[in-house]
């Protein structure tokens, strides 16, 4: 105890004490909330999926999308968007949005798979819309055709998502995201629902089999090795030009300076 009283008037004593107190408080809270979570699942097991989804919706979504999903000035109506939209937006972490920027971006999802399923069931109950899919239903490995998928991708997707699926810029801060590392069911759902600025590619325009081919091509592009040196982000002349104009010309200027410098 002598050790503590000796330093109690030290200039770092107060900040350190505050840090300990806050850490303790935080730990207590996280332990308390962690023990609370299983209770919520128990409650869900008692109620139906739709009711659970409604509870999540009221807590997490209704402040922007309205108490009945009717939408508001800052968020669109969710009536009729279907389970596919919810599964795409929430399971890829786009919703709930981090901030009110131009575009919701992909991030670690806030809700787990059961919660997403419940939310999707609730939104689908508002009005019929495209249904959600599971990765097992999307049989791209069996039914897709890589070459056909490549042709479809170049014709329908490449103008926004880049010829190698790396994504690209749109207007006013919006962008088409990279399609690398996206779960097959989310690619499929994006095509049938047209999230954010993306248009809808209906099943009559791009048939379900053709959609599987597109997914197969994307999966092939993900594992495509670099045949000729560094890929430079696979975005074509922009990074290539940047590298030549900075590194390439810089090297040439350096050599020119060295050539003309007087030796000592």
């Amino acid at each position, binding site marked *: 105890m002598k050790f503590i009283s000796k330093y109690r008037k030290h200039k770092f004593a107060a900040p350190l004490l505050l840090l300990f107190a806050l850490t303790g408080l935080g730990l207590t809270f996280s332990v308390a909330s962690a023990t609370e979570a299983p209770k919520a699942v128990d409650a869900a097991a008692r109620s139906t999926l739709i009711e659970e989804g409604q509870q999540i919706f009221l807590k997490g979504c209704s402040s922007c999308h309205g108490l009945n999903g009717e939408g508001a000035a800052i968020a669109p109506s969710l009536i009729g968007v279907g389970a596919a939209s919810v599964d795409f937006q929430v399971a890829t972490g786009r919703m709930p949005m981090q901030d009110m920027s131009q575009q919701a971006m992909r991030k670690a999802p806030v809700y787990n798979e059961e919660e997403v399923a419940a939310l999707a069931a609730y939104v689908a109950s508002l009005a019929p819309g495209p249904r959600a899919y599971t990765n097992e239903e999307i049989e791209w490995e069996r039914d897709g055709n890589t070459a*056909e998928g490549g*042709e*479809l991708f170049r*014709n*329908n997707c490449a*103008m*926004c998502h880049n010829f190698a699926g790396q994504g*690209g810029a*749109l*207007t006013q801060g*919006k962008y*088409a995201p990279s399609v690398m590392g996206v779960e097959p069911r989310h690619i499929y759902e994006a095509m049938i629902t*047209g999230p*954010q*600025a*993306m*248009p*809808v*590619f*209906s099943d*009559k*325009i*791009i*048939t379900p089999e*053709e959609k599987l081919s597109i997914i197969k091509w994307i999966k092939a592009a993900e594992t495509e*090795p*670099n*045949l*000729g*040196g*560094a*890929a430079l982000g696979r975005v074509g002349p922009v990074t290539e030009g940047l590298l030549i104009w900075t590194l390439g010309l810089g090297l040439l200027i350096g050599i020119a300076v*060295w*050539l003309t410098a007087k*030796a*000592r």
Partner: protein
Amino acid sequence: MSNELEPLADPGLPEHIHRKADTDPIAAKRAERQVAVLFSLSAVGTLLFIFSYFFVDQDQFIFIPVMGSTNAHQLGIGIGMAMSLLFIGFGAVHWAKTLMPDQEVIAYRHEMRSEDSDREDFVKAAKAGAETAGLGRRPLIKRALAAAAGLAGLPAILLLRDLGPLPGNALNETSWKSGTRLVTDPGDRPIKASDLEVGGVAQVMPELPVGQKRTLENIAKDAVLLIRLRPTEFQLDAERLSWTHEGIIAFSKICSHMGCAVALYEQTTKHLLCPCHQSTFDVTRAAKVIFGPAARPLPQLAITVDSEGYLIAKQPFTEAVGPSFWERKS
């Protein structure tokens, strides 16, 4: 006179300072070793090139930090050749700068014109050569040679023909005729109005008669983008509105600026972007240019449905699609 300027005295050449290697044998030895190391690195690069070419499997991939999985065969060839050429140059320059003679020498200029006697000798020799060859005595050979040499130049001029023929009216025409069905691209399936949802797009081509194959020239002119909006969202005049069908509007996909495929459609803003130079067209106002270098709206294709309900072109394009050209009518 105090303000009369004195001519500047010639300062002469600056004092010559010798390099360290000129005076210090240890420094000279060090420079020699450096040059030798640079040349040896070049040799190592050449050996790496040969080794990679013959002994590294073409399907061998290795992981390089930053670059990712990379083809080892190509990487070895590239690095080997770069080392081989660069280090010969670096070595030669370092050698010249540190060890080669350092004296400053003066190279005098000479008159370019040859001596008169040399010039006369040349004329004499040329005349004697022509005399011995008998050009003057054998006019048949002389004329045949002139004809052959003259004709030999002709193919170079004839090849200019391949710059033509002139396109004629081809730039003003596309394969779209009145009643041509719109088919998906790829897939070639005819489309019904109900196939397209609001907010949906479709890349389409004109349907071809059975057995006919689509050429690249046709694809470059015929590509069309179908977009479906809510009919209330259009701000079109009566004629252009009659060219749409239940909210479906069709535009040529070929940019009026440089001919890129315009197909970045933003469902939220109803803007159509060209990926090459960011020309932006407003779909609700007949593809009016609202940003970027394009000078004209995208040509709109008038569409309707046939008796079976499939989308068809009501009439051909009323203007030439794609970028400007000299003979363009509008």
